[in-house]
């Protein structure tokens, strides 16, 4: 009987440990509760800007609902002081040819969304990593710039991180 009770307690501890462990590691539930399924977020690591005006915008959709969105409706190149050098609105992004968006994974591809001639933006499915080829119509002086994207909710930050990256043009 004693052995049985010890086994029961061991299993109780293992199972409770799994439950609490998944809670803490996936949601930081015992410290700073975070649910990454609430709002879309984007990571722009790998983005490159060239002096001839070519922007290779590398986007990874890192958070938000798994079944819908997000939608990138504004891409900006900013001077370090925050002034806009150039930007693409949803109208332009939504009318891009599919061939200008290169997806890492074949399933759930990112794609331009437009309704007739009305461009909406770029659909970015959760988990997808993709490169958008954009062209600024003039040369860009060497220096440091910020590339930023906005979600359709009007935000460029979520969960304490901004959807932007610093790039250097040489």
């Amino acid at each position, binding site marked *: 009987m004693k052995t049985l009770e010890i*086994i*029961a307690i061991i*299993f109780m501890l*293992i*199972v409770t440990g*799994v*439950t609490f462990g*998944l*809670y803490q*590691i*996936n*949601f930081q*539930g015992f410290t700073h509760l975070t*649910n*990454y*399924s*609430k709002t879309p977020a984007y990571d722009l690591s790998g983005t490159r800007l060239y002096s001839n005006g070519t922007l290779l915008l590398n986007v*990874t*959709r*890192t*958070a938000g*609902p*798994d079944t819908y969105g997000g939608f990138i409706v504004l891409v900006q190149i900013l001077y370090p002081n925050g002034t806009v050098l150039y930007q693409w609105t949803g109208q332009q992004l939504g009318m891009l040819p599919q061939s200008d968006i290169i997806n890492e*994974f*074949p*399933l*759930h591809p990112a794609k331009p969304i437009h309704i007739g001639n009305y461009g909406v933006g770029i659909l970015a*499915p*959760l*988990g*997808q990593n993709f490169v958008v080829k954009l062209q600024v119509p003039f040369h860009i002086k060497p220096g440091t710039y910020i590339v930023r994207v906005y979600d359709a909710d009007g935000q460029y930050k979520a969960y304490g991180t901004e959807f932007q990256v610093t790039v250097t043009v040489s």
Partner: protein
Amino acid sequence: MAQVTIETTQKFLPVLRITLGWMFFSAFVRRVINVPDKLNPQSSLYVGGKILTFLPHAWSPVKGILIWVLENPTLLYDFLITFTALEAIFGLMMILGLFTRLSGFGLALLAWGMGPAAGWLGSTCLDEWQIASVEGAAALMFMLTGSRWLSIDQILHSKYPDGIKIGKIRIPLW
């Protein structure tokens, strides 16, 4: 039928057993009977796409495996078919109470296995964590209790009360 003492607790186990089994078996039913396109790689409903949504906050060794599987479509398809088959087999065994202990062990691994991959998902109530934790705990409980009432294990036990023996080791399948 030999006189078997069944503890009171055993009589209440089917209350949970059938619901638990259905959670897994119904996944097979949805993908194979309700919406067969869920297992069609050409369809936008293909469940392979779900694996992609796990990526952003999957735990690090698991994330690498997921990326590898996603970049090899045939591997992804084989994985989905295997996972669906295991859910069907172990889920049905749990519902019927056939080798309940083995089924409980299998289902606990399937449920908990979701934790490091999809555990961070859930826009309403930390959904995937709840699924993994509750189903994992319930399934593991059945590994420990078995289910000897309203079950095939009950029949097996009445016919073979000693269970299966390999050499001198008794394998407690029921």
